[in-house]
Structure formats: structure tokens, C-alpha cells
């Protein structure tokens, strides 16, 4: 059997100075070779690992026959954002983890192939107008992140008249303000959004549902169902002394300034950001990885990632961790911040940390980090980014009657993704999802159920 074809990556010491993509994508030959590794199982397991139900075996079959157009058609039948998924999905935990090849050797590179097909299509296929028969029913989608875009796309394909209301001035939600360009180029996202507009979806920006207009207003205007995908909101802070000093940002603030507002190009762009020389990022998820790698790219001399457990427990994808290490990020494991120390002007100049150790696994198998007393030490820094997670955005739930939330503030949904209020559905972070692909999966299921709901 042939080896899995690795995607060519740019040199770490070159790529860590710009925002160009890290992975360069497959050539036609590479894609063909990789696709031909597929065993074409009678009962392909890969598909069971895909939250948006892409017919993986089928699209790879087309690619193995050098039919890229056929492949993308199969993918687009289920996924509204193939170029995004091919780049940011954790395939190793999903489709690829189910691949039978993975038992004896490496699984087929489904993510790479999906990206290849999507990029091929964007270069070679002129976006065609879909021939959709309108069914005359209006649905509102609140939020244009991965959940909203997926739900809107599926509903539009079914003939619904879909309007997306977005509170920011541009589309994509976390795909634009959160995920940096070196993982997901803006041009790729713009192209995906363009495809969705070709389905007839209308986008209204600068529109905060709950405030600019209420859910009640939308219902009165004739929207027969509403999908809420308002995403994650307020960042979590560690609750230690000095956390509100200047030059301590939440990861959301740091990434929004840079990704959405182009702050690294200040003063050409109006939004500033402090370009730290010695940066400390606290956390171990994908957002922490995006933060360390972004800090490096805007000119940091040293970037340290401080995490209270070890690399093995980090929620971040293996690929992101690997890329970060290659790019010169230092991981300081088993360490937690205890205090942020100010200079005489109120800006952070150091973080005091304490070493941690992990307890024996508890019944759930989780090892808890506990402080090692007296192990405190100081890291000097001029920019701290806190990537400790987010709470669901409270605005829409708190301003809409009949929407119940759980203790953490997530909208409660049933198995049909309907909230506690009839006709209002939800998915993504606001309903307890936590990754892009989860959000897309929830958006997809919600679309199906909205269709059922409106046809009963």
C-alpha cells in the first residue's frame, strides 16, 4: 500500500512572519494518488464520522477517477462550506478516525481531499445560479457564523426565502473574526459566502436581533421560523489579581482586532493593537494556538503558551500544536497564572505563575491540576492574551420571551434543535456546540427540522 500523501507546508521560519496559508494544498497528481488509496469499502465508516453527512466515499471515488467536478457536486450536496471544512475540521477526530486504512497504516486524508476539491472548484467552476423553486416561506437566521450559514444554505436549497441578520459589519462570525488568515484565508471565506448568496440568501449586516429588532418583530414581519446561531460571547477571565491591566486582552479581543479590524496594519487601518515583544498566552485550546501564532506573526520575539495541564490534555488539534511548536512557540506546561504585575504606568510587565501537578485520574478518567505550593515564578511579558473560553452571547436569550437557558446560559434545545419556544430553533455555541464543525452539524439538523416543522 502506498503512503498517505502529506500536504506541503511552508517553512516555519518563513511562514511565521506573514499571514499566508501554512498548508499549500494538493497538486492534481497528489490528490489523484491519495484518492486512489481509498479501499472503497462496501460499508464506508468514514461517513459516520461526518457531522454534516458528506458522502465521503462517493466524492473520493470521483477524485480517484480524476473527476473533480463530480466530487465537488457530491460534497456541496451536503456541505455549504467545503473549503472551510477542508481547512478547519478536526478530521483526525471525525471522518478520518473511522477510516479502515487507519488500523494498519495512516487513514486516507479526507480533509486534504475535500480542500483540494473545493479549491479546484473555486478556480475552475463558474458559480452557477441554482435552479431553486421558491416555496414562498420566509425564515430568519440570526448570526452568520458556521451554524447560521449552514442552516441558511440548506433552507435556501429547499426553496425557503432566507434572510441572515448579522450584528457585525461583515459575514462569517468566528470564521472571520476568530480564525486567522493563515488557517482560513478571507478570500476563501468570501468565496463560500458568495456561493450562499447565489442560493438567494439575503444578508443584513449591523443588525443585532434583540435590540435593533426583536424576535417578536421578525415573527410579525412574516418569518415563519427563526434559527438562532448567535455564537459565543463574553470571554472568561481567570479571576486573579491584575487581570484588567493594560495590554491584557481576551483572545477574542486580540483576534477581533487583528482578524476583523486589521489592527496589525495600524495606522493604515484605524484599530490599534499592542504588538507585544514578549507575549504570554494562557490556555490550551485552538483559540490559544491561534493567538500564539498570530502574536508571532505580528512581530513578537518570544511567545510563551502557559497551560495548566500537559500537552496531552490540550483541547487544541494536534496539527495546530505541531505548527505552533515548529514556528517557535514555547509551551510552558503544568503552569497557571496567579498574578499579573504592573509597571508604573498600569501596563502589564510580568505574570507570576505557579507550577501544577496532575492528580491520579478520577472516576471519569480526568486528571485534575493542583498547585505545587511554593513553586511560584515570574515570566516577564508586555502582552498577555487570555484564551480561557467563552460564555454564550447573552443578548438574544435575555431579550426574548420564552427562551430558556441552562446554568451556563446556553439556549435549551430539544432533539429537533427547537428551543423552548415554538418555531425558534438554535445551534452552534449558543446551544452548547463548541467547534466549527459541530456548529455546522447543528445548523444542518436544525434546517431539516425547520423544514419538517413548516410542512406539518
Amino acid at each position, binding site marked *: 500500500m502506498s503512503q498517505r500523501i502529506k500536504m506541503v507546508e511552508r517553512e516555519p521560519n518563513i511562514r511565521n512572519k506573514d499571514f499566508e496559508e501554512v498548508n499549500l494544498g494538493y497538486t492534481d497528481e497528489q490528490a489523484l494518488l491519495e484518492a486512489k488509496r481509498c479501499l472503497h469499502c462496501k460499508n464506508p465508516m468514514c461517513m459516520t464520522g461526518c457531522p454534516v453527512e458528506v458522502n465521503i466515499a462517493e466524492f473520493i471515488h470521483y477524485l480517484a477517477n480524476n473527476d473533480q467536478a463530480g466530487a465537488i457536486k457530491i460534497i456541496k450536496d451536503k456541505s455549504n462550506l467545503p473549503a472551510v471544512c477542508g481547512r478547519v475540521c478536526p478530521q483526525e477526530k471525525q471522518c478520518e478516525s473511522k477510516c479502515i486504512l487507519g488500523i494498519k497504516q495512516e487513514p486516507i486524508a479526507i480533509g486534504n481531499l475535500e480542500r483540494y476539491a473545493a479549491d479546484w472548484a473555486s478556480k475552475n467552476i463558474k458559480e452557477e445560479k441554482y435552479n431553486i423553486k421558491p416555496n414562498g416561506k420566509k425564515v430568519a437566521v440570526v448570526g452568520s457564523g458556521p451554524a447560521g450559514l449552514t442552516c441558511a444554505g440548506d433552507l435556501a436549497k429547499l426553496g425557503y426565502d432566507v434572510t441572515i441578520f448579522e450584528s457585525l459589519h461583515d459575514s462569517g462570525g468566528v470564521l472571520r473574526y476568530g480564525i486567522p488568515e493563515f488557517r482560513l484565508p478571507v478570500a476563501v471565506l468570501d468565496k463560500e459566502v458568495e456561493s450562499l448568496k447565489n442560493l438567494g440568501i439575503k444578508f443584513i*449586516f449591523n443588525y443585532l436581533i434583540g435590540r*435593533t429588532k426583536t424576535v417578536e418583530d421578525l415573527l410579525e414581519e412574516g418569518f415563519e421560523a427563526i434559527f438562532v446561531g448567535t455564537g459565543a460571547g463574553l470571554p472568561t477571565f481567570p479571576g486573579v489579581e491584575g487581570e*484588567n491591566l*493594560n495590554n491584557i486582552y481576551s483572545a477574542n479581543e486580540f483576534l*477581533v*482586532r487583528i482578524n476583523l479590524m486589521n489592527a496589525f496594519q495600524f*495606522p493604515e487601518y484605524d484599530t490599534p493593537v499592542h504588538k507585544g515583544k514578549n507575549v504570554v498566552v494562557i490556555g490550551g485550546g485552538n483559540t490559544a494556538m491561534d493567538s500564539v501564532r498570530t502574536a508571532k506573526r505580528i512581530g513578537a520575539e518570544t511567545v510563551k503558551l502557559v497551560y495548566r495541564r500537559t500537552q496531552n490534555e490540550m483541547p487544541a488539534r494536534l496539527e495546530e500544536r505541531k505548527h505552533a511548536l515548529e514556528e517557535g512557540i514555547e509551551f510552558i506546561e503544568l503552569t497557571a497564572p496567579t498574578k499579573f504585575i504592573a509597571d508604573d504606568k498600569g501596563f502589564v510587565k510580568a505574570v507570576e505563575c505557579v507550577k501544577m501537578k496532575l492528580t491520579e485520574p478520577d472516576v471519569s478518567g480526568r486528571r485534575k491540576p493542583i498547585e505545587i505550593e511554593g513553586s511560584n515564578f515570574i515570566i516577564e511579558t508586555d502582552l498577555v492574551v487570555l484564551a480561557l473560553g467563552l460564555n454564550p452571547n447573552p443578548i438574544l436569550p435575555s431579550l426574548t420571551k420564552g427562551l430558556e437557558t441552562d446554568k451556563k446560559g446556553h439556549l435549551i434545545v430539544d432533539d429537533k434543535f427547537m428551543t423552548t419556544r415554538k418555531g425558534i430553533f438554535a445551534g452552534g455555541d449558543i446551544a452548547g456546540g463548541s467547534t466549527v464543525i459541530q456548529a455546522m452539524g447543528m445548523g444542518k439538523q436544525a434546517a431539516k427540522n425547520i423544514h419538517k416543522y413548516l410542512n406539518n
Partner: protein
Amino acid sequence: MFKIIKKEVLSSVIKSFEIEAKDIAKNIKPGQFIVLRLNEKGERFPLTVAGTNLEKGTIKIIFQEAGKSTTQLGTLKEGDYIRDIVGPLGQPTEIKNFGTVVALAGGVGTAELLPVISALLKAGNKVITIVGARNKSLLLMQEELKEHSSELLVATDDGSYGIKGFVTTVLADVIKKEKVSIVYAIGPVPMMKAVSNMTKDYNLKTLVSLNPIMVDGTGMCGACRVSVNKEIKFACVDGPEFDGHLVDWEELTNRLRAFKENEKLALEKYKDILNMECKCHKE
């Protein structure tokens, strides 16, 4: 795109715009704000709304040119467009009959005070409004304030109009004479802090409308966090109004300085461009 339909120059640095924004006009309540972005390269910045015209579907903003964005905003003319405006944002002011309300404003905060006192007066309160400015020429909207207050008191630093002194000087007097139920203050941080410090001695509940640095303004980035009673609050969704006795003023003052150097640079660079354009136009 949001069209500017009327522009008024209130002083050399204070301008007033009426902007078409039908849905915002319809739903905004006193105390709420909007976030603007002037163009593709612009930053997002918050401004409190000074009034609405429901028939015309317009909102009114009154702002002081301080940094680059407000200076640039000031150069726009009637018929020009602002690229992005989102709102209304933040929690509205609680409007009910408290009894006697003392409402204080300093500088451009005066404009933002108007919708609040207007609603409070309608709700049956006795509204004593105190406004302050450095001198007479900087006083704003005296007629409107008078119309929406039970009593209007003015302080100028140099004594060129009203009482010589600060709004706190006047407030001290009022507290001694009247049975005040609640105090409301909007303006520069040092003024709101001074008011809160004074009313604390009288155990007189004081609401302040805070203006920390914001980016998205919709509860996402945490830039606008303030410590209130030692707890993190987000001015964009929990505020902008908080109990002035519980706000960590020192921290807020410090956080407002976070981008001072950048702001200076951006403004200088922008003024150079403006000067260049002026010269070009003359040629």
C-alpha cells in the same frame, strides 16, 4: 450605509448630525448607544444617542472631535454616508418615578443627558439638571435642557456663565437644600468620579454612564470590562450605567489610557492628510 441628512456645528469641536437609521430610531431608549465605523479601514467606536425623530426615522448624535475617528466624522457633510452603524446597544436607563433626580453632565455628555432627563421628567420626577463646561462658549443645548428639566443649574470653570466652579460645587448646594432620591451623571471620567465620591458621603444612590474602550460593542470581546464591586462587568451588555459608588475608577482611568500613544499617532497622521488636502484644494 447610513445617510447624514443634517449637520450642525455647535462649536469649533462639537458637531451634531441627524442620521437616517429607521430601526435604531424606533427601538432606542434613553441611555443606550450605537457603535459606528466610518469606512472600510475605520475602527468601531461607541457614541451615545442624543435624540430621535420617529417620523423621519432619524437619530441624532452630538460628538466632540477628540481622536482620529471623531475628527474624521466631523469632516462629513450633509448627504454623506457612514458605512456601519449598529444599535441600540447596552441596557436602557431605568425610568420610573424616583421623586427628585439630580442629573449632571459635563462637556459633550450634556447632549447624551437630554433623552434621559426628558424621560425622567415625563415619568413624574422633579428633575434638577446641572451642567458644567470650561466656559460659556462651550455650553450646549441650554434651551432644550431647560425645557426638559424642572430646574437647570449651570457651572463654568471660569465663571463666565452661571456659578463659578464645577458641577460638584453646585451638587453640594442642591444636596443640602433638597431631598434627593437619586443622582445620574454622564461625562468625563474625572467628573463622574468626583460626583460619585461626593454622593457616597451622603449615601445617595448614583448612576454613572461609562465610556470604556470598545471594539465590537455586542458582548464579544471583553475590551470594555470594568470592575464594579470587584466583579468584572462588560459595559456594552451589562452597562453602560453602573452604580458609581461601586466602580473601580482608578482601573477605568488606567484602561482608558491603553492606546493613548496609538491614538495620538493616528490623529497626527490624519491631521497631516487633512492639511495636505487643504493645500491641494487651494492650488
